[in-house]
């Protein structure tokens, strides 16, 4: 392990002399940078996708999990009593953040699509609705129902489970999709960089054998290549990441209107994750080139 650290130090300190022994460019070299760049670009997109779907899942979850409705149907005379009882009961229920009886106006607004604005709500046996905001932990719906049955016989609890399930599933699927893409693209990036490093080293077989002939140590040779390719992958991935971020930013952005999908993009701490891509690419390149160089060297005496 300490050898790896030494190596890593070498990569960044650098030895101008050792550096020159590696041919400056060529197709295989360009391939390394390009593979790193495009794969970084795709990774940024996959990250953006999985973050957006993560946010989406959270939003769907939030909107529906944390509120439920209590409906009280009772003869006009008992309505106020039962409502008060229900409110009292809810206040003492663990997991209920707030409970609030809707006003007549609010109820009318809810019913308007059905009956039009002129509904004489007070004259009707319209049930009283109570809006419940849950805490993060949520409450025990079954227990609450039991207590309500005992104390407020006219109350019906609607905890939105019916609506919540499919939305949560959908959001979960989206999030999984994001992670699957990120895993796939990450794995592809690593393999691509590995293969490119191998190809580049194969193309440089003559350089390696000449160096070995004139008495260079394995470490010297490996480090010259490792340094070059690690930096190349780092630069390529940095460019790709930057391009990806820019592309994500300029994607048609009318985000807020979307309602169901928050915009594709990064928010807050989310900006931090794509910045990990270039160092990760560099680390992959480091180990891939190191292994490839050692393999190439082991074929020579």
């Amino acid at each position, binding site marked *: 392990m300490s050898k790896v650290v030494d190596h890593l130090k070498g990569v960044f300190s650098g030895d101008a002399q050792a550096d020159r*022994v590696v041919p400056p460019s060529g197709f295989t070299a360009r391939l390394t940078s390009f593979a790193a760049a495009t794969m970084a670009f795709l990774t940024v997109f996959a990250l953006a996708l999985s973050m957006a779907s993560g946010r989406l899942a959270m939003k769907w979850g939030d909107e529906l999990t944390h509120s439920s409705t209590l409906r009280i149907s009772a003869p006009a005379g008992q309505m106020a009593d039962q409502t008060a009882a229900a409110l009292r009961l809810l206040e003492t229920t663990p997991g209920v953040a707030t409970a609030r009886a809707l006003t007549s106006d609010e109820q009318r607004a809810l019913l308007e699509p059905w009956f039009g604005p002129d509904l004489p709500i007070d004259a009707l046996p319209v049930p009283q609705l109570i809006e419940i905001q849950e805490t993060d932990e949520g409450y025990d719906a079954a227990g609450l129902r039991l207590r309500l049955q005992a104390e407020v016989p006219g109350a019906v609890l609607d905890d939105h489970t019916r609506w919540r399930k499919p939305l949560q599933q959908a959001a979960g699927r989206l999030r999984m999709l994001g992670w699957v893409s990120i895993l796939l693209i990450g794995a592809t990036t690593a393999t691509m960089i590995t293969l490119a490093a191998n190809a580049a080293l194969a193309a440089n077989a003559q350089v390696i054998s000449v*160096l070995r002939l*004139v008495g260079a140590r394995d470490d010297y040779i490996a480090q010259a290549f490792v340094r070059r390719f690690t930096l190349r992958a780092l630069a390529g991935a940095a460019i790709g990441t930057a391009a990806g971020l820019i592309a994500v930013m300029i994607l048609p952005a009318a985000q807020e209107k979307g309602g169901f999908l928050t915009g594709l993009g990064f928010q807050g701490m989310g900006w931090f994750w794509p910045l990990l891509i270039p160092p990760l690419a560099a680390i992959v390149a480091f180990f891939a080139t190191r292994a490839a160089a050692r393999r190439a060297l082991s074929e020579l005496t």
Partner: protein
Amino acid sequence: MAYGYGGAELLSDISLKLSPGSFHFLTGPSGSGKTTFLKLCYGALTATSGEVRLFGQDVRTMNRDDHALTRRRIGVVHQDCQFLDHLPIADNIMLPLNVSGRDDLEDVANLKELMGWVGLGKRGDAYPPTLSGGERQRAALARAVIMSPDVVLADEPTGNVDWEMSQRLLQLLIELNRMGKTIMIATHDMNLIRAAKNNVQARVLRIANRKLQLAGADL
């Protein structure tokens, strides 16, 4: 000591000690195993049977870094000389110094003189692929001796150069030998051997029928 590629034995029952400061020629028909023998001498191949000692150390016990260090003490001119094609020829000749972490001013002066001697004084900035066949061989010889190694193994170093130039190269090797270096040259050129014999006490080894023999004064 014996050696064979794959199944068949190519060299067998060879026993030889190169004493420091000696001068050897190695001859034999094409394909007899001269290059193979030289490779055994600098540890690029390991004998299939028997023991090879380099500077007193058994090749089998040497690790890869030992090999690298040994090669700094043995200058090798390959039959097909390879270079780093992306570096000018002067840098290629300096390469052994660079990879061993030595390149002081003295060596740079050395380089100039050496390149003049092998007739490449004006072509130091040329890249290896643009050199002529003879120029490559001379560059390879220069690269082999720049570290002033204890041993110089040269495989057909004069195959592509004219007679005059081959005399100059021979002169260089003879000088080195006078400084106490051990020299071994594989060659087909009997004239070269004859010329050398006038100047230095050279022994001629001949590979024939898979054996290494000391050729007499039959030249």
